[in-house]
């Protein structure tokens, strides 16, 4: 532990040194430079989505379109059926995330609180799925979906997302449940509450922040996934947004304005969510995922 005066002494020295000032300027330049590298492509994307294809070709770097053409969005939305893709993606996301949270938190609560033979083995089995790429199991999954007649339905996606979401959810929530003091539950058990009541009425409200974090990450995972829709979905009217973007790129290769509009449409929801909840993301990642 350093005392306050030591710290002050050091920081005043830091301000006085011209070398430090120079390096401070340099680091700001590096940081701003990389920030530009992150943002500029996205700004170009949005700007281009408001131009004509001719203007994009003539002047790809300008961020201000000559005339703002919102028509690209209307065209992309209508021609490419983005309305349908959005509906599909939202349906799959909502159902998957809700069921992941429900099933995952129940399982995590049981694993965190009850001792029974096999508890540890089941926990480790969940943990094993944590870092194995589930897409490597796609061949038998495809056959299974075919035999269950789920192929080319949104349920094939939902089922895989729920199963695939378990390891992360269980892993994170078990550690949260373990940190909750037992007194509250014990009191409820004394009052005759069953395990489900204890879980639902007492434990779940206490881990709400963790649930929000898990929900956020799972939502992104599901919303952004391209691989499983690519394999499972054939019908045009069942495409999710990423699959729709992909099909769109195959069809409208030369209409750049439309392609940029389609990209912007598909990225927008995620950016908005991130702008609203970036703190939660960062806190969730740095506290839970890696420790």
């Amino acid at each position, binding site marked *: *532990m*350093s005392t306050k005066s*030591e710290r002050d002494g*050091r920081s005043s020295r830091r301000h006085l040194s011209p070398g430090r000032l120079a390096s*401070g300027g340099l680091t700001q330049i*590096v*940081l701003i430079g*990389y*920030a530009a590298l*992150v943002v500029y*492509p996205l700004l*170009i994307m949005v700007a281009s989505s408001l131009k004509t294809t001719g203007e994009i070709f003539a002047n790809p*770097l300008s961020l201000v379109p000559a005339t703002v053409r919102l028509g690209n969005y209307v065209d992309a939305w209508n021609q490419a059926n983005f309305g349908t893709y959005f509906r599909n993606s939202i349906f799959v996301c909502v159902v998957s995330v809700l069921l992941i949270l*429900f*099933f*995952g938190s*129940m*399982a995590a609560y049981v*694993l965190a609180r009850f*001792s*029974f033979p096999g508890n540890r083995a*089941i926990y480790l*089995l*969940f943990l*094993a799925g944590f*870092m*194995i*790429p*589930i897409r*490597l*199991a796609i061949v*038998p999954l495809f056959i299974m979906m075919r035999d269950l007649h789920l192929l080319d339905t949104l349920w094939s996606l939902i089922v895989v997302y*729920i*199963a695939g979401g*378990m*390891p992360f959810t269980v892993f994170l929530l078990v550690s949260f449940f373990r940190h909750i003091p037992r007194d509250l539950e014990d009191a409820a*058990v*004394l009052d005759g*509450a*069953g*395990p489900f009541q204890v879980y639902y009425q007492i434990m779940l409200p206490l881990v709400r922040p963790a649930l929000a974090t898990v929900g956020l990450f799972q939502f992104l995972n599901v919303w*952004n*996934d*391209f*691989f499983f829709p690519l394999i499972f979905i054939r019908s045009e009217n069942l495409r999710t947004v*990423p699959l729709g973007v992909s099909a769109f*790129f195959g069809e409208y290769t030369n209409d*750049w304005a439309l*392609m940029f509009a389609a*990209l912007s449409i598909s*990225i927008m929801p*995620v*950016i908005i969510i991130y702008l609203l909840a*970036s*703190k939660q*993301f*960062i806190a969730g*990642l740095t506290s839970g995922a*890696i*420790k």
Partner: protein
Amino acid sequence: MIRALRSREHGPSTGGDGVAVPTKRHRTVSMRRYTYLLMLAPGLAMYLAFIIWPFANTIRFSFYNWSGLGPMTDFVGFGNYTSLFDRAPINRQFSNALSNTAQVFLLSTVLSTFVGLIFALILSRKIPGSRFYQALYFMPNTLSVIVVGFLWNLLLNPQFGAVNSVLRGVGLDNLARPWLGDPNFALPSIVAVSAWANMGFPILIFLSAILGIPSDLVEAARLDGASELRVIATIVIPLLWPTLITLIVLNFIASVNTFELVFAMEGSEGGPFFATDVLGTLFYRMAFGGVGGVYAGTGLGGAAALATLMLVIVLPVSVFVIVFQRKVSHEY
């Protein structure tokens, strides 16, 4: 343990719920004792049915010659595996994809993990706006990889793409090139795009590890007159080893998993001329892309063999990271 003791204090009639206490007095109580297992069931059942069982089947499929239809009877032992190594043209494509995947791993370790470390070191120095930069740098992580791929596909277009326009604009005309069409630059371009999309993650994790270093260690060294670089080299970096290794391993797993970016930017054949073909795209073609084509004969068994090999590559590394993490977290 404690729980069992405690509930014994309460007596069997009150401590009946899910507690390992022998109570057979009331039938309802002993039924209720197991209701907690019903709560475990849905999640566990889904996970077993749609993750564990398919994984087991992947391994089983890999020993059969099977087209996906009819009964699976043609047992070929390790035949599907050996054909990855000695049967043309699969063997050439396999070794090419393996080497490209290794290159993706090595390049992205430098471009994303190490560069991420440098940014984290910079951001750890209480810089004005540090939180803002952190949040901004992480933003591309939230985007769909396939969409990022298509976006950069347009930006890297040789004639109309923004990248070449920038290069021409600042007088570096001879650097402008068909990034994705040149076999020498296609793979590095894809890794660069992947670094653009993922850099925020290593930055974030390194940064929280750096901020977790006890400040008295660093302060003491500074008071002894150690320079900033010396503090970083002798105190910060050694303490970051566990984080560094974890991030390299995660990057390894992600590299073996590479698929979407290549698919979006170079197609499922990993063009130009297979210069960007990775294990992920080869696996996709073997499983779903080549019916009756080049891959006739390998069938689903061949794809399952490749998937099993990839699993064999990834699994020990995953297990290592989990065990390693636990050890490290015990140390702190």
